[in-house]
Every structure is written in structure tokens, then in C-alpha cells.
């Protein structure tokens, strides 16, 4: 379960189709820093540990520094960071072959935002079959899942998003931002400290967004007013009035957590640890892939006590959810079609149709697909 531990939502700022909710950190964080990493934007080839490769457009990288002893990493006004690797194109050469997306550098960890999560989406829900069922195609058994692609929309293409970010008034202790379009969560972004946030605020524009975000941004150019309706009439004195105002803030915070984030919070998560940075855990997660709800993939960094230090999410489209769900289920049943069909409450021909519709038809042999099609026709 994901919780916004240690964060308080502040009242939203609306501009165009975007409702932006700032997140404030309750307790300042001074031993973990996240800074814009050194990586030129462009198309990169990323090698995964299991011999697979993937090609992706990489907008920018983040660099995580942490102190293992818990001592502050920065003094007031200055920054104690490792040496800047600004210009040297060190770990990859030639056609920008990135050996790993997360790479331990001398002092910190460099990683590419959202690619942890997307890599997860592409690979996490796929467990190769252990039994060579005769239904599975030769290519699948020999070469694995093969080529897969998922797409998103860069933030700069969302109409009005840049404007909304530029005119957003960053709060004093703000460490994060929730982006809503059509009152659906488009993405969440949280960093350890307010200073980091100031530097990274605009990188939100360079990130990747689900296609539903684009659709909502175009379809709902003006979100309905959602003002924290204050109840000030009852106040008899000035202190009571002030209490009422504070009440409005509290209500807003609980409203955001309770009503606006239902498809992210309080849902079972599938998580996978990616890196252990000192006492901190970097993990990727995906919500339970319930096809009836909007699902998010994301990555997060948490302290042992559960405080959320870093969070980035990506809203999956319905098709993406279906694909991931299907692969997940098939892997769960060891790719045995009859078992899987029974478990999913359907028949084998229908399951085959579903697999074909999701674009994975090439995983099954021609004979199986033809038999299933015939069975469907005869019904």
C-alpha cells in the first residue's frame, strides 16, 4: 500500500486543464538529496541484466545522494555534494549505450526517472514459462517475449501544461506535486527536500504521461471549481475565525488523500525492490492492475520508518493495464492456457482471443490460434 507518509497536501492551484496540488513535507529532510543528473537528453539503448535491451527516449537523469550515517548532507545555504561530473561523457560511449539505467557513481546513484517503473512494466510482469507447453510458439520458447513497446506522451505536448507549471506558485516547504487532469491523477512527483524541488520543478514538463492524460487535458479544458468551501459564519471571535481557516486547510489535505487519490492510495501494490541505498529502499511498484480502475506504475524511495522521500508515477492507459494484467495472470498460471482460462473464469478459445487482441498472438502456435478461432465460430 502506498501512503503519503510525512507529506501534507496544500490547496490546489488550477490553470487551464490542470489542477496542481502541492505537497509539503512535515519534517525537513536533510540527509538525502536528489539533483538533476548529468545525462544528455536523447534516444538511449539500455541494457538490462538479463541480456535484454531496450531503446528509449531519456529526457534527463536524477542523481541520488545520501549519507549513510544520517548526518546532514547540506548546511544552510551551501551544498556538500560529490564532484560534479558535468561535461565528461563517462560511462557510455559510441551510440550512447547505457549499460544500466541506475549506476552507482563515486558518491551517489544515477538513475533515469520513470524508466525504473517502465522497465518494470515491460519486464516485471513477465515470467517466462518453465514448461514448454505445445501451445506456445517456437519463437517464444527460443527467443522469449521478444520486442515490446510502450508509449507515453511527453509533458511538453500536453496543451497548457507548460503554462500551468510556469504560473504555479511554489510553496515554501514544497517537496512534491500532484498533477490532475479531468480530476484523474496524471502523475505524482515527490523529492526529498524543498531545495531539490525548486531545481526539479520544471523537469515535470519533460517527463512522460499516459495517453489518457492528454485526452483529458484536451477534453476538459476547465476543471470544475473545487474550492475549499470554508464555514466561517459560525466564528464569533477572531481566534475562532483563524481556527476555521486552519480547518479549511486540514479538510483540504484529508480530501485530497481521501477522495482525489483513490486510485493510487489504499490499493494493493505489486512492488519490487530495485536498490538499497544505505537504509533507504528504492522500489518500483504498480497498483494491483485491476482492469476496472485506473492503474499507475511508479517508483519510490522510502525510509525504514515509511517516510516517502521520492515518488514518481505514470498513469497507465486501459490497453497498457490489460496487457500487463494478462501477462501477469499468464505467468501466474505458468503459461498453462487451460488453467489460466479456468482461473480467469473464461474458456480457452476466449482467452486465446484476448491474448491475440492484446497483441501477444505471436506467442501461441498457429494451430492453437486456428483451433480457437474455429471453436468460437461454431458457437
Amino acid at each position, binding site marked *: 500500500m502506498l501512503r503519503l507518509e510525512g507529506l501534507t497536501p496544500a490547496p*490546489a492551484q488550477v490553470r487551464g486543464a490542470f489542477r496542481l496540488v502541492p505537497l509539503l513535507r512535515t519534517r525537513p529532510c536533510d540527509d538525502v538529496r536528489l539533483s538533476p543528473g548529468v545525462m544528455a537528453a536523447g534516444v538511449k539503448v539500455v541494457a538490462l541484466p538479463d541480456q535484454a535491451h531496450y531503446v528509449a527516449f531519456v529526457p534527463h537523469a536524477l542523481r541520488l545522494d545520501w549519507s549513510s550515517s544520517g548526518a546532514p548532507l547540506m548546511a544552510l545555504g551551501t551544498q556538500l555534494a560529490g564532484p560534479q561530473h558535468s561535461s565528461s561523457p563517462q560511462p557510455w560511449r559510441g551510440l550512447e549505450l547505457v549499460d544500466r539505467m541506475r549506476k552507482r557513481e563515486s558518491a551517489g546513484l544515477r538513475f533515469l526517472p520513470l524508466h525504473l517503473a517502465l522497465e518494470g512494466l515491460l519486464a516485471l510482469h513477465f515470467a517466462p514459462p518453465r514448461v514448454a507447453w505445445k501451445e506456445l510458439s517456437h519463437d517464444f520458447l527460443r527467443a522469449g517475449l521478444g520486442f515490446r513497446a510502450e508509449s507515453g506522451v511527453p509533458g511538453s505536448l500536453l496543451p497548457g501544461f507548460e503554462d500551468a507549471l510556469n*504560473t504555479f*506558485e511554489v510553496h*515554501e516547504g514544497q517537496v512534491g506535486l500532484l498533477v490532475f487532469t479531468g480530476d484523474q491523477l496524471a502523475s505524482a512527483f515527490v523529492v526529498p527536500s524543498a531545495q531539490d524541488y525548486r531545481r526539479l520543478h520544471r523537469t515535470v514538463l519533460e517527463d512522460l504521461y499516459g495517453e489518457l492524460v492528454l485526452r483529458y487535458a484536451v477534453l476538459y479544458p476547465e476543471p470544475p471549481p473545487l474550492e*475549499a468551501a470554508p464555514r466561517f459564519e459560525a*466564528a464569533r*471571535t477572531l481566534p475562532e475565525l483563524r481556527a476555521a*481557516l486552519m480547518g479549511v486547510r486540514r479538510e483540504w489535505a484529508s480530501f485530497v488523500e481521501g477522495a482525489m487519490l483513490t486510485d493510487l492510495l489504499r490499493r494493493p501494490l505489486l512492488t519490487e525492490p530495485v536498490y538499497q541505498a544505505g537504509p533507504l529502499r528504492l522500489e518500483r511498484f504498480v497498483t494491483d492492475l485491476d482492469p476496472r480502475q485506473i492503474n499507475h506504475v511508479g517508483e519510490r524511495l522510502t525510509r525504514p520508518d515509511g517516510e516517502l522521500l521520492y515518488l514518481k508515477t505514470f498513469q497507465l492507459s486501459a490497453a497498457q493495464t490489460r496487457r500487463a494484467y494478462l501477462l501477469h495472470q499468464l505467468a501466474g498460471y505458468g503459461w498453462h492456457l487451460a488453467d489460466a482460462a479456468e482461473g480467469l473464469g473464461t474458456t480457452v478459445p476466449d482467452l486465446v482471443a484476448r491474448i491475440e487482441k492484446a497483441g501477444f498472438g505471436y506467442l501461441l502456435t498457429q494451430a492453437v490460434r486456428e483451433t480457437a478461432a474455429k471453436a468460437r465460430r461454431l458457437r
Partner: protein
Amino acid sequence: MPSADTVAREDLTLFLNAAYACTGQREFYHTAEDQRVSVQFLHAYILGNYRRLYARTLAAGVNDFNAAEIILNLLRTGRQTPPDFRAEENALLTAALRRLPPQRGWKLLSRLRQERVNNRRTRALLRAYIAGQRDLTFQAVKYRRHVRAAALHAHLTLPGELPAFLFGQHSRAFLTPLLETFRQARYSGQAVYDLPFTVAQGLAAKHGIPQAVFLSRIEPRLTERERLRLQGQSEGRVELRPERLSLSALCLYVLSLPLHERQARQEELNGWLSRAAGALLARAPLPLPPGPVASLLDNSASAAGSREKRRRPLALALAADALLRAARPEGSYQAFWTRPPPEALLVQARGQTNLSERLLDALDWGARMVLVVSDGVENDPPGAFHPALVAARRLVPGLEVVHVNPVFDAEMLTVRALSPLLPAVGLRSAEDLPTALGFARFAAGQASLTELENYLAGRVQTFLLTGGRRAEA
């Protein structure tokens, strides 16, 4: 259904507010194009429906951008002037044109030519303007292109050697010293320094004179605005004379300095500010009620303005603070910034807008009158100011709140108000704050159309009597 009078009053206050604040330039939330389209619509609407009142707004202290627009629009549609109003309109036009700063005045004449507005009245106005110039030769050198356009447009024969200067080949020497200097400056690097700065600048570039040498030698000829403009790049070669700057310009300058410099020169800068505020108050005192006064000053991120109007909303807040501090005795005034700086001088545009919270702070302190300087965009929490104000008016009897807004909202066609009970008053520079406070009761809807008409007629009287010099409330 509202009566015709109410509609007229509301239309007019809407227009006046826009004409106080809007300059057709980019703002934090809207582009220059939005602003231009929106304000032009307002002009066309008011001109079409309330021509007399439209002309009279020239006397109500609208900003120079809008004054120029009004003059142009009135001249464009001269045929529609009612006969009994012709004399007053002409007087207003003459006075308003004379009041415009020279660069705007000449540019307006040029525009008349571009847009082919040419009738007897336009030519007479042009003649009067040119005849009224104290130093036409200087103007002809400084605004050569515009003066030539104006002379051509009105078929004027200019006195002395000006026709040869504006239309000739400059092959023979001039007898007028300035014209001769200009002629020589095309060939000699020496003569450049005797020309007005803007003219000299181009010629200096032509002669390849290094910037540092040029600035140090042209320094005595600089006007105050030019000094201000050159402060940053001159590395101390150009000296600023703060006593000659207006309060708004001074505040803009102070805010342009980096924080550490503001901190180091605190005493000096504060002295400048209070002197400028004192001078402004001596000319036009602020119409303030007795009792404790608080100001609610917005220094949220949006107060940073835009690339074209950098830090103007913040500068206005700082100027209002300086004015009130100078106007009120010690202890009866207190400023409440949305994000309090350690010292007013060190203010920065950062963070969200939490005006309701500061309003309560001001009331706790005991304020009976609150002046709000804000762009009216409130987001922490949004929409809380209105109910807070309603409750505060109930709890604090006799509470008076005035909202001045330096930013024209192109979408709403007016300056944005914080609460329907508290219409905002547009404000472009701190020098107009006395006018704005005088106008606030019309914006608040307490006065009738007749009162507003009388107010405008009164302003017209003073305006024409003072020959168009800046009339204060």
C-alpha cells in the same frame, strides 16, 4: 434587472480600472496579445456607448498607454462627437496630448499618419502640439522619424532650418548648433557626445566607440530614466540621482539590486524611499481615515510580473508600504506581507498567496483600515478571502478594506477582485495611489452614476485648469 444607470456605472468603473492598470504588456498570467485584444475591446465598447464619459476619462488619471489609445480613438471617430460637446472634447484632447511624455506623444502622431487619421481637427491638434513644444529643435533631433511623419501628415511648414534637417540631404552646414552637431556626428566621433543619449548611442556604434568610453563621456547628458536603465551595465560609471526619481521607479530600481547589496546599503536605500514617499505625499496626501491602518502586501511568486513588467507588482507593494509608512505616525501603521521578509527592503517574490491568513493577522493587530495590494489570485486556500472578509466585517465594526490591483486580467476584462464585495481598483504606479483611493468608493459601488459623472466633470475642470499637468485627486 439592473437599471441603465447601474449598468453605465459598472461599465465605466470597469473601463477606468482597466485604463489605470493595463499597458498592453505581458503579465504573469496573460500574454501581451491577450492584454491588447482585451483592452482594445473595452475601448471600442465604451467609446461606442458612452462617448462623453469616454473622453472625460482622459482627466481621471488613466495611464499614458490608455490616454494615447483614447486620443487616437476619439480622433478616429471625430464625426460622432455631439456638437455641444465638441469644445470640451477638443480641450481635453489638447491637454491630454500635451500631458503625454514626449516619446509617447510623438509616437501617437506617427500612428495617426500610419492609420490615415487625417481631418481638420487632427491637423489643428498636431499644429497646437508642435507649437507648444518648448524646444522643437531638440525634439526634432531626438524623435526625427516621428517629427517628420507629423510634419508631413499635417502639411506643416516648420520654422527655421528644421525642414532642411528633416527632409534635406545635410550637405551644407546648419546654423543651428544642435542640428550642426548632428550633421557633424555622422563623420566625427567627438560631436557624438553633444547629442541626446538615444541618438548618440546609434552613432557611437557606427563609429565603433567602446561602451565604457562612451558611457563615461555621455554621462552629463543622460536623463534620469536613462541613468536608471544604464545602472546595471555601466559598472558605476553612471551615477544615479535618486532624489529625481519617482517613487515607483525608485522601488523598481531597489528591487533590481541583489539581496546582499540591498542589505549592505539598507540605510541609504531606506532614506531614498522615505524621501521619495515624502515628496509624493507633499504633492498629494493620501485620503485615509484616522485609526490604525494595515497594508496587506502580496509578495507571492506572481508578484514577479513578466519579462516586460519585471517586478512591477512587487515594486508597487513596496511603494505602497513606503507611502503609508511616511503618511502615518509611528505605531499606527503595520505592513503584512504574504511571506514576511526580515525587512521591507529585502522583499522577494516567492511562494503562494495566503492573503486570508494575513488579513486575520492584520485584524489581530487591530487594523481598522486595510489596504490590499495584490494581483487578486489567491490560492492558499483558494476562495477563502471572501468569507473571511464577510466574517471580519461582522466581527470588526467599521472595518474598511480597499484593494488595489496592479495587474489587468485579460480574461475577465478587468482587474481581478478578491471578493464580490470588494471590487479592486487598478493601479499602475504608486504616484496614482491617491487617485486610486479617491476612486475606490466608485469601484465599491457605493456611489451612483450621477456622483461618478460629477466626479469626472470635476476632474475635467481641474485637468483643464492645470493645463493638463498631472491632476491629483
